[in-house]
């Protein structure tokens, strides 16, 4: 059974074609890194898989069934927003709010649901976060809680929307490692969207690149090449490999300072401007 299969899927939002005639198949248990510039349709594809945006045309199957809201086999971690910093509930209460699913009535959990919450917290090593209020946690700790919330119901497919945004490089690799380990242990497929390929390089089975409404799915060596990405974007794209790392850049934009910052930490004149853009290695 494929985890996600798209046949000629098109999605239009507000008169703009976000995805047009996308074909792809993601197998069970696969770890897929999803990349692409802002607005290339990463979040839209996830929302389509969740049944939250209608398809213009095509067939989208998730775990063998047409994509619909409330598929119990799909776990989802939305992009974290600032509002979590104001929540004063404990980690346990926050995660538990999602444990009852869409059911009606009082937010009471039965013994099995409580065990499920404990299990989900343990899986991401957040047992000790359970008693602390969200407002007092760091960004990385909140991220782990969101991840454990996505594990409730033991999904066969996990959709993670930009889980690395706003994390420093050390915590980024921590999140990638946890997801990789859980994916192996629990046997679920992962669609992991990110701005940067490098933190994911050692974890992913294949990479999905979105651009110009199209999708390119394959191994890193197949997809992350100058000619392949240039075709996808319809613009000149260069790919530079440097000490086990890969940098993707649009024709004229110099990627050198990015490499410097990562490789030897030299400060230089572009640093300030670059800080705002550090999360993006696709400069389009």
């Amino acid at each position, binding site marked *: 059974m494929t985890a996600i299969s798209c046949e000629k899927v098109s999605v239009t939002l507000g008169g703009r074609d976000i995805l047009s005639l996308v074909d792809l198949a993601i197998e069970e248990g696969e770890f897929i890194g999803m990349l692409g510039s802002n607005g290339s349709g990463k979040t839209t594809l996830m929302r389509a898989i969740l*049944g939250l945006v209608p398809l213009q045309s095509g067939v989208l199957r998730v775990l063998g069934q047409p994509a619909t809201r409330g598929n119990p086999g799909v776990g*989802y*971690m*939305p992009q974290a927003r600032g509002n979590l910093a104001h929540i*004063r*509930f404990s980690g346990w*209460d926050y995660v538990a*709010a*999602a444990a009852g699913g869409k059911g009606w009535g009082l*937010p009471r959990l039965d013994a099995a649901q409580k065990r499920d919450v404990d299990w989900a917290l343990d899986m991401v090593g957040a047992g000790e976060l359970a008693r602390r209020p969200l407002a007092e946690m760091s960004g990385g700790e909140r991220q782990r809680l969101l991840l454990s919330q996505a594990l409730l119901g033991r999904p066969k497919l996990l959709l993670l929307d930009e889980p690395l945004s706003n994390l420093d490089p050390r915590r980024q690799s921590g999140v990638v490692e946890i997801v990789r380990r859980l994916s192996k242990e629990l046997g679920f497929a992962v669609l992991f969207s990110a701005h940067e390929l490098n933190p994911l390089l050692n974890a992913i089975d294949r990479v999905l690149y979105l651009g110009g409404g199209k999708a390119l799915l394959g191994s890193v060596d197949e997809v992350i090449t100058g000619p392949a990405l240039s075709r996808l974007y319809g613009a000149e794209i260069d790919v530079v490999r440097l000490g086990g790392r890969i940098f993707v850049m649009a024709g004229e934009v110099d990627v050198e300072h990015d490499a410097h910052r990562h490789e030897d930490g030299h400060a230089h004149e572009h640093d300030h401007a670059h800080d705002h853009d550090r999360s993006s290695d696709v400069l389009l």
Partner: protein
Amino acid sequence: MSMTMLMITIGVPMFSYDFMRTAFVAGGVVAVLSGVVGFFLVLRGQTFAGHALSHVGFTGATGAVLFGLPPLWGLVGFTVLAGFIMGLLGEKLSGRDVAIGMMLSMALGLGLLFLHFYTAYASQAAALLFGNVLGVSDAALWTLVALTVLSLGALAFISRPLLFLSLQPELAEAKGVPARFVATAFLVIVAIAVAECAQIVGVLLVFTLMVGPAAAAQRLTTHVGNGVALAMAFALVEAWGGLALAYATDWPTSFWITALSALIYFAALAQEPVLRWRRGPIKV
């Protein structure tokens, strides 16, 4: 004088008056609803909606008075209609503060016009704006009780998806929670609570019973259930304490309720650093 003596010397004569007994029941019934509804209102960051609904309620109440109907009917009718419309508009309302502010000013202005045509102008205006818990009729009391039971029942029914939706809107939608329905139903319940509250403390002071207790409660506990119970308890203490103090001093009840509400809220704010210190240092 001992506490018991104090309670006997004030309490016994106080409860020998019919209107005082009615006021205590009315205040208690309204406080319970306000505390619980206010908890979710604060959690969802919708306190402004409560404020807005009370302004609309003023128009409804004065309009009802003009046509010889009980003001409570006009209050409930108008706030519920406005809550329903606000729920349907949903996201479209956010960020339109000026337009909303103009509508609210107009609602108050219309209420003023209705009062202008009504002869017993001053006393009616003061009662609507600042409340008149001592003037609650038996018929109004039964309406309050019935509306409270109905609203609490409805809130209990939607409380699980409402909590989920408030803490994790995208995930809740993906899991199949009917977001628009739950959000609209909640605003209708808020509208009823606002209308009830306006009977006790007046349309201008609804904030004091709806938001004050809930905001204080959320400062003091990290558990959802405890928070709801605490918000309800604070609202009760404020309503009944306000009545007793008004009886003892002959000052307006609404003044004492606002004073107690502010006292409890700021005490909760001051308490928080102490709690945090006792829990140990914050990990970053």
